[in-house]
């Protein structure tokens, strides 16, 4: 299945024109029991081919334990977004549908090296004293979801102590069921803090700060 053809390709290329720094997409796939590993690879290959600033590095989730450990990913397909260093931005499941926008946003902010968060949010997350793990559960047909995904990713880029995952709920039903995901976007922070909906930045950050 070709994701990016003709018109689409041109438009994505335009979106990627403003990139400054290099971005590495580290993709983990496995040969078996992975519905969308192939699609994830094809999608990223397509995106990487449109800009010389983007490189794609593929790994076998089952066979390359050292890299899996390095990026601390625990299922496939997984994507880690790396700029001058690991950003903590993760995608679990294929970032297609509405989430394609989140992928482009993650690439763009990593390349520029600026989360775009408000000064107030930046100051707040500096006060975090514990590692924070944000999981944003989404489905590909949800138009509100990229807002929540990108908000998590901005925070991950801003703070070395934050890792933020997009989790495509229907690809990881056990995880979705573990956190009782019955509406998306659903955000889970350090297991305990949970909320639904794409909250505005100050409210989202407020929830994150409860983790400290």
């Amino acid at each position, binding site marked *: 299945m070709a994701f990016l053809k003709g018109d689409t390709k041109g438009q994505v290329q335009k979106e990627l024109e403003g990139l400054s720094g290099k971005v590495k997409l580290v993709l983990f796939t496995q040969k078996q029991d992975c519905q969308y590993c192939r*699609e994830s690879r094809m999608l990223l290959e397509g995106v990487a081919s449109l800009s010389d600033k983007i490189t794609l590095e593929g790994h076998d989730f089952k066979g390359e334990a050292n890299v899996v450990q390095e990026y601390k990913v625990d299922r496939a397909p997984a994507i880690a977004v790396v700029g001058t260093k690991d950003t903590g931005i993760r995608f679990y499941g294929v970032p297609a549908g509405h989430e*394609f926008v989140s992928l482009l946003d993650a690439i763009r902010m990593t390349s520029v090296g600026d989360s775009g968060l408000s000064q107030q949010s930046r100051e707040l997350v500096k006060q975090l004293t514990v590692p924070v793990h944000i999981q944003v559960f989404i489905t590909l047909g949800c138009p509100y979801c990229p807002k929540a995904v990108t908000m998590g990713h901005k925070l991950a880029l801003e703070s070395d102590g934050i890792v933020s995952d997009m989790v495509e709920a229907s690809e990881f039903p056990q995880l979705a069921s573990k956190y009782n995901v019955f509406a998306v976007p659903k955000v889970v922070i350090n297991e305990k803090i949970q909320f639904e909906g794409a909250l505005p930045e100050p409210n989202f950050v407020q929830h994150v700060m409860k983790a400290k």
Partner: protein
Amino acid sequence: MSQGNIGVVLPDYQLATERVADEGKVYELIIIGGGPAGLTAGVYAARKRMDVLLLTQDIGGQVMLTGEIENYMGYERITGEELIARFKEQLSHQEITVQEESRVASITRGGKVFIAYTDEGYSYRARTVIIASGKRSRPLDVPGEERLVGRGVSYCAVCDAPLFAGRDVAVVGGGNSGLTAAIDLIKIANKVYVVSAHSSLPGDPVLVEQVEQTPQVDIFVFCDVQEVLGRERVTGIRIRSRQEEEERTLPVQGVFVEKGFLPNSELAQDIVKLSEDHEIIIDLGCRTSVPGIFAAGDVTTVPEKQIIISAGEGAKAALSAYNYLITTS
């Protein structure tokens, strides 16, 4: 657990955002709302070289929550997002100021201008206003609903349907949006109940037939939902037949509320006349009870809420506003 066709939704077309909304000036027209009515009004007004500010929470409105559209002329089949992307592209070629994430809370009159106050604390002035704020989902308004939102009660089928793979679900509402939700759910869920208060399903026959012919669908007409059951998550709904006055419980884990809509007319309730259903009363020229304020699309008394109708109404409202400006200045 199919997501249907996997493709990508492209990023928004950039609207001409270099133009920033200006609190200090008096616009010729403020358009409130970024759905089909508001966007079309924007194109028409900009082509008349009116000085226009469009204030909206988001671009696309309810259309963004619509899967396949097969009745918008010019496109045999198009998704809601694609259609809006094309609307936006068309608007992006026009001279117009668009302020997103802006929710107008009220409108007042101040001398010869109208003032729109936003939730974000800004106020903008204009000589004419078009209200195209659309409508929102009507809740069930029964016990259990509020407690179980996000725990099985959903108002967004395109968002949440994939989370109910292999489960039993109910769709409340037999109009087009309910039937479209049911058709989406058939591919994912185990069993789909469709519950309608009408004596027969009121949606388009082409959709009704599709739903009726699916063996995994059970249809309950002339029935009202009495309660959503469950503590931590939905375990069922209690429905009551209007005819037989008997109750039964449908064991479902998901309830998709597609019971029609409420107009987003609160912002205008103190200034223009509303109908009993809280819709803004308009005439054939989209004129409200207040000269200079126009309204278009789903927030109004226009019969039938359809994308193509809202787009047409938006065009009409813009031309009416233009004519009003010419004749009053």
